[in-house]
């Protein structure tokens, strides 16, 4: 940076001026000298203050890096937490894994319940069958009742006959008595066992019925709970689009504010270069001041004074532009940081509902606790179902054997009865040969009829028993299968359930840890934002350092203008500072130049730097200034503007990259 080495003229020069222009001129020259002394001092201060300003900008940019770092960390932590809970970005969510396990087990229990209901129906059918079999006893007793008298009648009828006949009927009598004894035994023991079986099956039915109802209630409740849990999850996390949108919006808001701060910080370089351009003009101004001081008459003094008036006003305008830039940068940086702070407060209070999240997921009544309890409850239920199936299996299994055994006995009985019947028919035929055997013939025929009837009943009972035995075996198998699948489900629940419980607890711990870390990050972020805000202290430079240079320049310009006007000079005289234009490489500087030149012909036109300072809601870049005809299109420097002022225009060669960009 080149700083103007202002060389003040000493007393001899002032004395010379006094001689030349008389007392008024003496005062004027002295005034100019005093103003130039102020300019010199302000310029020296500017050097020092510029270094300080640069250091402040640098410190702010370092603080901004930390702020952005904390901000990124914070947003990532929150995103991680929400992603973890909702399963976004990974295969599964911690909640949905547990819910699926519970759902799967509940489906199993529903299946058990349905199967039990089916088996219960069968068992009820079997018990009805047993009831019908028990009725067979009465039927058989009634059918066989006449046989009790047959031996006595045989004895009585065969008495008058020969011993051979008597012997034949005695043998038949023994068979009938033996059969009777066997029937009595069957009725006395086996049918009693069948009766016992019916009671046992009835007890199993009652127990399974109770369990089935309880299972139905529990599974219905669980299904409702699971559906509610899934709904809650969907509502509160997965489908809570608003939360994600808010988070996304917030991240974008913070990014936008950081962008504004980044843009604001770049104004240090812009302001610095503007000041260099201003001070680059000072040697020329100094030369004109010397020319004025050495002018031998008023006519000679007029041109340098015109130059001084124009150049000092122009540089004052440029300084005012720099003050405006600094004000805008300060507003952008401070506004940006304050908005970040406000967004943090919003994030804390509404956006993320961290406390709500905590309650929803990790508290005593939160999702994790509910899921863990549900897993335990389902595990108990599956255990109870397995135990019931095992019990039913153990109770029913021997019943099939009993039925099969009974069938064999009844078939044996039936065979014997048929034999007696046949025997009786044979004996009846023999007895018919003897006239005295007519009674025996009738008896034999009747015995044969009873045998056939008994046989028919026995065969029927045996086939019913066969069906019962088969049905019971089927039910026993069903309970065996239920027990096996139940044990498998129990294993799944034991293994996966514990895994899910561990996952849920691990999630709870990490969620709590993340929540704590988020709280810490939020505090750090706030503290960092406050620290960053504290470094933005440009007001002294803007309100004191720059005006200290600008105001004497304006005073010189005003003084020179008054001097010229007092001596009949015309303000619309030629522009003498056109050469300064090449110093101004920025669009805004050229704009100030054009405004100063135009203000000479239209004094009411405001300088660009006198425009209202835009607030901190900056978004778009300015459009390029209108280029002079015939000149190539220039790319304007972007300025901080309100979003509502102008949309971001496209650059002719940078396409949609912005007005300040041109790609070759």
């Amino acid at each position: 940076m080149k700083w103007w080495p202002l060389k003040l003229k000493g007393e001899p020069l002032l004395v010379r001026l006094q001689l030349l222009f008389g007392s008024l001129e003496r005062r004027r020259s002295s005034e100019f000298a005093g103003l130039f002394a102020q300019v010199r001092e302000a310029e020296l201060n500017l050097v020092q203050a510029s270094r300080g300003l640069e250091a402040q900008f640098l410190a702010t940019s370092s603080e901004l890096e930390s702020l952005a770092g904390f901000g990124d960390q914070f947003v990532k932590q929150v995103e991680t937490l929400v992603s973890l809970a909702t399963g976004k970005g990974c295969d599964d969510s911690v909640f949905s894994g547990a819910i699926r396990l519970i759902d799967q087990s509940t489906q199993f229990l529903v299946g058990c319940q349905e199967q039990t209901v089916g088996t219960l129906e069968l068992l009820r059918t079997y018990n009805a069958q047993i009831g019908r079999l028990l009725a067979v006893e009465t039927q058989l007793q009634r059918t066989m009742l006449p046989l009790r008298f047959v031996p006595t009648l045989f004895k009585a009828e065969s008495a008058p006959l020969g011993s051979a006949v008597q012997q034949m009927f005695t043998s038949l009598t023994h068979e009938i008595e033996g059969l009777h004894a066997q029937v009595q035994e069957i009725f006395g023991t086996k049918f009693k066992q069948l009766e016992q079986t019916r009671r046992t099956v009835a007890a199993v039915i009652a127990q399974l019925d109770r369990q089935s109802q309880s299972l139905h209630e529990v599974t219905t409740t669980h299904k409702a709970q699971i559906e509610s849990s899934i709904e809650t999850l969907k509502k509160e996390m997965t489908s809570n689009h608003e939360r994600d949108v808010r988070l996304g919006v917030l991240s974008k808001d913070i990014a936008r504010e950081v962008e504004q701060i980044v843009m604001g910080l770049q104004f240090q370089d812009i302001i610095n270069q503007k000041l260099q351009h201003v001070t680059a003009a000072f040697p020329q101004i100094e030369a004109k001041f010397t020319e004025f001081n050495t002018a031998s008459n008023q006519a000679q003094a007029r041109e340098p004074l015109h130059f001084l008036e124009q150049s000092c006003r122009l540089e004052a305008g440029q300084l005012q532009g720099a003050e405006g830039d600094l004000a805008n940068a300060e507003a952008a940086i401070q506004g940006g940081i304050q908005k970040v702070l406000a967004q943090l407060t919003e994030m804390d209070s509404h956006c993320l509902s961290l406390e709500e999240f905590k309650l929803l997921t990790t508290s005593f009544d939160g999702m994790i606790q509910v899921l863990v309890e549900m897993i335990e409850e389902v595990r108990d239920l599956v255990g109870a179902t397995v135990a019931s199936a095992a019990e039913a299996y153990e109770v029913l299994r021997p019943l099939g054997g009993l039925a099969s055994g009974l069938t064999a006995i009844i078939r044996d009985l039936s065979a014997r009865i048929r034999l007696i019947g046949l025997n009786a028919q044979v004996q009846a035929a023999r007895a018919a040969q003897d006239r005295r055997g007519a009674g025996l013939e009738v008896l034999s025929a009747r015995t044969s009829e009873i045998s056939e009837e008994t046989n028919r009943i026995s065969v029927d009972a045996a086939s019913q028993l066969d069906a019962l035995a088969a049905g019971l075996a089927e039910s026993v198998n069903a309970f065996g299968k239920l027990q096996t699948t139940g044990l498998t489900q129990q294993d799944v629940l034991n293994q996966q359930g514990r895994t899910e419980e561990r996952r849920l607890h691990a999630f709870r711990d990490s969620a709590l840890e993340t929540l704590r870390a988020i709280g810490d990050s939020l505090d750090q972020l706030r503290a960092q934002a406050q620290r960053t805000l504290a470094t933005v202290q440009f007001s002294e430079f803007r309100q004191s350092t720059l005006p200290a240079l600008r105001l004497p320049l304006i005073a010189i310009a005003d003084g020179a203008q008054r001097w010229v006007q007092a001596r009949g000079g015309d303000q619309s005289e030629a522009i003498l500072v056109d050469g300064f234009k090449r110093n101004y490489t920025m669009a805004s500087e050229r704009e100030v130049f054009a405004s100063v030149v135009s203000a000479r012909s239209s004094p009411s036109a405001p300088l660009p730097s006198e425009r209202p300072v835009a607030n901190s809601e900056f978004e778009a870049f300015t459009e390029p200034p209108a280029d002079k005809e015939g000149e190539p299109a220039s790319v304007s420097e972007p300025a901080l503007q309100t979003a509502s002022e102008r949309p971001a225009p496209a650059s002719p060669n940078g396409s949609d990259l912005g007005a300040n960009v041109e790609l070759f």
Partner: protein
Amino acid sequence: MAKTILTVDDAATMRKMVSFTLRGAGHEVLEAQDGAVAFNLLQSRAVDLVITDVHMPNMSGIELTRRLRALPSFGRVPIILLTTESDPGRKAEGRAAGATGWIVKPFGQEQLLAIVAKVLPS
């Protein structure tokens, strides 16, 4: 995909803002405070992109561009001039020196990243 980018500026704040923006997008960023330092650095270090200020002590950004374009290894490396200057004459100088593009300060972060994405082969 992360790239190595050299930012050249005599203003430390500007270097910091460029680095901050590019590092945030995952790029590796090297810094140099003027054209001469940058030129020396690039003798021993390959980069994917150079973003340089124009007005700097020792060696300007335009001179740096010119010298780099004279090197065979720099024929295809994009060079972006990032400057406060918007004078068409200076811009034409930059173009003639072989610059890829011209950005007038201040830049927006998203804007700079979009420019980088556009000039760098994926």
